């Protein structure tokens, strides 16, 4: 009888440990993440992961259901109430860097629920800017991204700022 109770306690403890998110157990959670997917126009962004963990507490705010925490978005709980944590919780594991390429569009299945899943760049910005607007974080483009030379050329900024104003190439 005693051994059964021990097993039960052990089992419950293991289950509870399983339900605690990975980062709370301190396993493999990066402190800082370098994001360089826009390296064509911008310097890489160093994302202070631990700072955001301290600010947000709930991993689900960014990682949806993938870290295994329970959360209550009515659109997600239909399937993910207890779906557990996924092998890879990185944004790029699910969000494609090329969401609109011909190859990606061909693979898309309109019957699939996550058909309307943002690409990697969209996922970053929608998540970051949305939260920053609500909570008073920086929201200007250059608050996070320093433009490189190609970026300045694209935006006609920095050394590429137009010099002749009121010339024939006006917008009006």
């Amino acid at each position, binding site marked *: 009888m005693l051994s059964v109770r021990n097993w039960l306690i052990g089992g419950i403890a293991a289950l509870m440990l399983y339900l605690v998110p990975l980062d709370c157990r301190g396993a493999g959670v990066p402190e800082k993440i370098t994001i360089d997917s826009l390296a064509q126009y911008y310097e890489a962004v160093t994302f202070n992961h631990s700072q955001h963990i301290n600010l947000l507490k709930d991993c689900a705010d960014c990682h949806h259901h993938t870290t295994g925490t329970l959360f209550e978005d009515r659109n997600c709980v239909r399937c993910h109430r207890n779906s557990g944590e996924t092998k890879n919780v990185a944004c790029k594991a699910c969000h494609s860097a090329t969401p609109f*390429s011909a190859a990606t*569009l061909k693979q898309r299945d*309109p019957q699939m629920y996550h058909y*309307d899943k943002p690409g990697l760049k*969209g996922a970053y910005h929608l998540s970051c800017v949305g939260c920053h607007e609500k909570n008073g974080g920086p929201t200007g*483009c250059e608050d996070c991204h320093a433009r490189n030379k190609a970026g300045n050329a694209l935006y*006609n900024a920095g050394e590429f700022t*137009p010099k002749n104003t009121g010339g*024939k190439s006006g917008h009006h």
Partner: protein
Amino acid sequence: MKRRDFLKGCLACGATASVCGMSKKAWSAGSFEGYPEAMGVLVDLTRCIGCRSCEAACNKEQKLPEPTTSFADQSVFSEKRRPTEYAYTVVNKYDTQKGPVFRKIQCNHCNEPACLTSCFVNAYTKTKEGAVTYNGKICVGCRNCMIACPFNVPGYSYSSAFNALVKKCIFCHETRLKEGNPPACVEVCPQEVLTFGYRKDLIKMAHERIREMPDKYVDHVYGEKEVGGTGWIYLSGVTFDQVGFDTTLGNEPIISNVKEFLGTVPMVLSIWPALFTGFHLLATKNKGHHDDHSNSHQEDSHK
């Protein structure tokens, strides 16, 4: 055959031909809902932050002239702009009860484009990929399309005195869309305001977003039905009239306003020459015989 019979016959034939013509072919255009594999873009106004990256990318992709100010300059939002020969797309800012809303303007790539309808040299093409392109080599610069466009999109190269042409967004057809790639603005957009895909899928996607977040969106997909449907469709958190959309356009394609009239043109061209040649022949038939003519005239008047 007496002249009177001939005339009756002519009129009867003309009437029959015009009725047959009407019922058969000319009016089929109204049911065209776009090519099945046509691409489109879903524009979600609730996501736009007004960074103007789309304007910058368009400027480089289409090799447009240098802008007057940097694309990082936010002061342009002080006025409402429209597309021009220098900028095929512009973003405007609207202050609403839900805060500032930014709206990108460019060609909506209609299923049944009014510009194409109005162009008498056929400079416009609706491609199977969904783009409304134009051929500057054919364009004579009449600007009918600028008047016809319900969205006020085509710009005009007023800067050129001798080769003035209409200029507008072509969905990056030549450089990207043809190969199945998204236009430059879609690719550069950081917020994924712009979702590129098959138009038929985007419409489902748009309604699904409304269904999932009914508090976020107004229950209207602008462009799904307006003027017969457009390739670029829109979702908004505020009513569309608040952010510069014309909500009075109705769902009939612009061509419906003119096709009944235009449908009579082939009839006129094919029947009238024969009809009037007949009149002419009859009128000149007895020219050499003045007596006969006056006799018959008297005969007629006696009746």
